[in-house]
């Protein structure tokens, strides 16, 4: 043993020359790179990095753009509003967070011009308004004059009026308008404000003035109903930090919100688009990870012979470990760099395309796409290669004599577990959302498990099928059976890729169709409010004469939700009137509600709990589910309603889900007719007014001074353009994910190519014609693709049904068409891919193939 010690010591001293193994690792890397042996793993990592980089930077920039664009709907990133003046401290503090602010005041008042008067909604704004978006104005009322955008409101002494106010007052641009004690010059026609209200009940004819003119008008007196708002914009992180400071200071009557917080058509659309982008990104990551997992195993298997040889030639385990760890690091590093370069270039092209189509410059991407794509590439390469690498280090040197030694190393549970944890961690890193990641991950894991079981059964069952030997079909089925285990893995990968692609494709179409169906060309673009009962018939007659259809007239009564089960709810209070806050009261709505009574449930409403009113209903109420949750109302609770000085109770018998996205009047509380029908009510309706009828309708309505027409055309135009842009973005993201799905399919076909080549050589040597081999391959891949496509279609339809209902609040439905499209796409794509790969091999002559195989 003394001799042994001497030998080893000498060996170790010699072997300690680190430069040699580093040199060897670099040499192997460059040689294999040059010979194309690293193409699959490098391409998989590079494409994963490329996909994740492009996807995350595009979604990041689109997400920011959508946020910014949608923020223009409140003219800011966040808005703080109250029925009482906001403390100066709030604005002063915001400067410390580098936030921009603007002030707003809303109040309703009468405008006078010559002998006419008009009740109008006044918005007084500071010079910083709007912080996001632009104000669209015109210089005259003429249709011939184009409108244009400006980024600041009127200067002191001027007033901008909406067309309907100008018509109602019968004035032209340049005329004088009396607002309280101050005369203002009608300077511009107000066409569109970024934060034009979409609250059809509170809006009336709109005018814009400078906030510095408010004091001179003397219209705000103690007791006046005024709404104070402060707008904020700036870096999102700073806004969040500022809100952390602000939150404990906010009183009951002060509310802080962003565009996504409010129940509106837009908030629903923005949230849905962002969910889709997130989902697409997660699926992209899953596909990229699968591609790397497949190629990493293949990469390690390719190194079995060199490792066995090195061990035979005396290479120590530690040297071999170092060489191949460095080798893999070089592959990963190189592939990540390539992925980033191409990803950056693709992202530039994508952003250029999207900016052009979205007619908007996209914001700069953050550092996140770089970080997340590098982490994805490196983590996937390391974690998916870890177990195969450990197996590689265990390859016995005896493999040089027994060629198949080590080939039987199966995919271990540890490898599966490590890979699964890695994918989940990456999904979590990308989304930052436990719930979405968990649902998506476990549903996919379940799918993989079920698919694997099904595919094993299918291939086993196929063993009974007998066909004449020597036919292409016979060879194809024999191949499928022989590689039952490998084919099961392939089938799962194919099916997973096809399933995810079908899933996203159908979801994209459903989302966009849903948006478009809610915004048809003849969608309501105006509302008539304050229609009295006496005016109903003449108005209906007038609209019919003009050929204008309505959504029906809803009666409304303004009232306050005062109590729940005899417990008083807090209400707005006026400090100016020395009112005291109801300290003991439960948090309430804080404002009056528009109540209605109906016997039939509106079409855009759906009962989620309880029962809708029956024929003999008495004293019942139906409450919107969000409001019920907020105020902790249970079915059977008694709510107290206060209308003027009259108080009455109603029993809550149902909760409703309201489609706030519909451009129709919606109500938080609907009461049974017996409770409300005796109160004086006004009516409201939504209608589609063609552009050419607008002017004449305004003139006709002039004789009904109490009726207000709220034109939401510009709002719809804005929403429609946002939807169009988001649709383009979603389509683009889908293309990237499809690209990634294609990569999974290619890497899977590549993985089985070596074994197939051996068979090709044997068959060729035995004299099989190229056509027979090509057809056998074509049929084998055709069957694989067909089964994968069918299973994928079934599972994606089930997943779609769940996701549409649970995540996207869409009406879940089945899509029979994909049951055909799935197998057709799977069979054709997979078989064409396999066919061309084998056809390339068959171009070589048999002796060349033999040499390559040896």
């Amino acid at each position, binding site marked *: *043993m003394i001799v042994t010690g001497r030998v080893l010591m000498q060996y170790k001293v010699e072997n300690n020359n680190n430069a040699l193994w580093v040199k060897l690792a670099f040499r192997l890397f460059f040689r*294999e790179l040059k010979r194309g042996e690293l193409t699959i793993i490098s391409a998989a990592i590079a494409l994963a990095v490329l996909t994740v980089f492009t996807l995350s930077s595009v979604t990041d920039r689109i997400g920011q753009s959508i946020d910014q664009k949608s923020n223009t709907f409140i003219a800011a990133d966040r808005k703080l509003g109250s029925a009482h003046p906001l403390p100066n401290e709030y604005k002063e503090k915001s400067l410390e967070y580098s936030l921009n602010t603007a002030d707003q005041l809303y109040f309703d008042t009468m405008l006078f011009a010559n002998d006419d008067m008009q009740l109008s909604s006044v918005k007084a704004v500071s010079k910083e308004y709007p912080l996001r978006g632009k104000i669209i104005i015109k210089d005259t009322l003429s249709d011939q004059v184009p409108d244009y955008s400006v980024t600041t409101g009127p200067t002191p002494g001027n007033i901008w009026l909406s067309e309907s106010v100008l018509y109602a007052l019968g004035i032209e641009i340049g005329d004088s308008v009396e607002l309280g004690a101050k005369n203002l010059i009608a300077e511009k026609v107000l066409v569109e404000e970024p934060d034009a209200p979409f609250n059809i009940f509170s809006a009336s004819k709109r005018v814009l003035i400078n906030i510095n003119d408010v004091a001179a008008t003397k219209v705000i007196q103690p007791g006046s109903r005024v709404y104070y708002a402060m707008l904020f914009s700036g870096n999102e992180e700073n806004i969040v930090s500022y809100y952390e400071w602000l939150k404990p200071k906010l009183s009951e009557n002060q509310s802080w919100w962003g565009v996504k917080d409010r129940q509106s058509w837009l908030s629903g659309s923005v949230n849905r688009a962002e969910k889709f982008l997130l989902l697409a990104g997660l699926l992209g990551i899953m596909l990229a990870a699968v591609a790397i997992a497949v190629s990493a195993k293949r990469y390690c298997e390719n190194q079995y012979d*060199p490792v066995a040889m090195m061990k035979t030639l005396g290479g120590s385990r530690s040297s071999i470990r170092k060489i191949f760890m460095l080798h893999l690091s070089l592959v990963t590093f190189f592939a990540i760099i390539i992925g980033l370069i191409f990803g950056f270039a693709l992202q530039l092209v994508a952003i250029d395309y999207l900016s052009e189509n979205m007619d908007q410059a996209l914001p700069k991407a953050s550092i996140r796409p770089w970080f997340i794509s590098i982490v994805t590439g490196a983590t996937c390469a390391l974690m998916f290669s870890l177990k195969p690498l450990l197996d590689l280090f265990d390859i016995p*040197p005896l493999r040089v004599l027994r060629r198949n030694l080590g080939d039987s190393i199966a995919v271990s549970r540890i490898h599966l577990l490590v890979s699964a944890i890695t994918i989940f961690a990456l999904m979590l890193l990308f989304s930052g959302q436990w719930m979405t990641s968990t649902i998506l991950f476990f549903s996919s894991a379940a799918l993989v498990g079920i698919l694997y079981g099904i595919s094993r059964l299918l291939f086993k069952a196929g063993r009974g099928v007998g066909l004449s030997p020597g036919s292409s079909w016979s060879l194809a089925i024999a191949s499928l059976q022989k590689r039952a285990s490998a084919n099961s893995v392939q089938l799962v990968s194919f099916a997973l890729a096809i399933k995810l692609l079908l899933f996203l494709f159908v979801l994209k179409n459903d989302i966009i169709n849903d948006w478009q169906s809610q915004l048809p060309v003849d969608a309501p673009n105006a509302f008539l409010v304050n229609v009295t009962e006496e005016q109903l018939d003449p108005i209906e007659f007038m609209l019919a004469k003009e050929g204008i259809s309505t959504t029906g007239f809803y009666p409304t009564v303004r009232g306050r939700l005062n109590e729940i089960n005899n417990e008083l709810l807090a209400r707005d209070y006026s400090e100016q009137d020395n009112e005291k806050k109801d300290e003991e009261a439960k948090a309430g709505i804080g404002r009056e509600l528009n109540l209605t009574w109906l016997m039939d449930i509106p079409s855009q409403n759906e009962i989620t709990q309880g029962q809708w009113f029956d024929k003999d209903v008495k004293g019942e109420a139906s409450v919107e589910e969000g409001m019920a949750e907020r105020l902790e109302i249970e079915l059977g609770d008694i709510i107290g309603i206060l209308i003027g000085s009259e108080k009455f109770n109603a029993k809550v018998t149902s909760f409703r889900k309201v489609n706030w996205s519909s451009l129709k009047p919606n109500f938080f509380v609907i009461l049974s007719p017996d409770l409300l029908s005796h109160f004086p009510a006004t009516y409201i309706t939504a209608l589609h007014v063609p552009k050419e009828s607008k002017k004449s309708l305004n003139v006709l309505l002039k004789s009904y001074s109490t009726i207000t027409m709220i034109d939401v055309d510009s709002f719809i135009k804005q929403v429609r353009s946002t939807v169009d842009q988001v649709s383009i973005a979603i389509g683009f993201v889908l293309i990237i994910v499809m690209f990634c799905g294609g990569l999974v399919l290619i890497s899977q076909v590549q993985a089985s190519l070596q074994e197939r080549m051996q068979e090709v050589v044997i068959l060729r040597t035995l004299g099989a014609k190229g056509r027979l081999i090509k057809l056998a391959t074509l049929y084998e891949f055709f069957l694989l693709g067909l089964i994968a496509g069918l299973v994928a279609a079934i599972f994606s339809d089930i997943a779609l049904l769940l996701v549409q209902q649970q995540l996207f609040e869409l009406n879940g439905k089945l899509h029979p068409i994909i049951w055909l499209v799935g197998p057709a796409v799977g069979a054709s794509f997979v078989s064409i891919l396999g066919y061309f790969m084998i056809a390339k091999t068959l171009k070589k002559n048999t002796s060349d193939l033999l040499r390559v195989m040896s």
Partner: protein
Amino acid sequence: MTELSQLNIIQVRALSKKVNTLAGELPILSDISFNVKPGESVAIVGASGSGKSTLLGLLAGLDSTNEGEIYLDSEPLHTLDEEQRAALRAKSIGFVFQSFMLVQSLTAIENVMLPAELAGHKDAKQQAINLLTKVGLEYRLDHFPSQLSGGEQQRVAIARAFVGSPKILFADEPSANLDTKNGQLIESLLFELNQEKDTTLLLVTHDEHLAERCNRILHIDGGHLINDSNGSRAHAV
């Protein structure tokens, strides 16, 4: 270790090898004993499945024994773990295989340099050039295995086997994959270098002519050493 044992570069005592199969333990080699002197050339012959390749694997330390002792260059191979056996191979053993076993991604010269580099030799490149010149491949240094013919690949393998001047050379059917002309060329090269470098040669073959060129022939049958006879070069030892 006895004085006699120190005269032998390989000593095998009561060597047995069994493998586990579904049907139970299957004996591959049973009670094999023999010695090999330094510089001697020994052919191990036998029918397919007789256990000759298993014996070669055990002698080279590629596999571990179940029973018995093997001393290789005075080292008790049967007591060494895999790392120690690898160290011994790096220092004392060269290999030539039937299927050449060249690393496909390395050029001819890099394949030859590989064992010297793994052993930490700094003059690996010069050694490789000298040996490749010796086997007549000085113009093919930068060719990859796939660019070489079978005979050329085996010549690269022989050059690789002699790099670092190993004391023992193991060869597994070195000419079985080659045509007659190339086979003879390889065999001649092997014996030439064996003599020139004073290397002990142990080769597994079923080629009687090749076996005859060795000093001794060990006949294996059913895992037993049934005959230890002299070859035509018996006088050369």
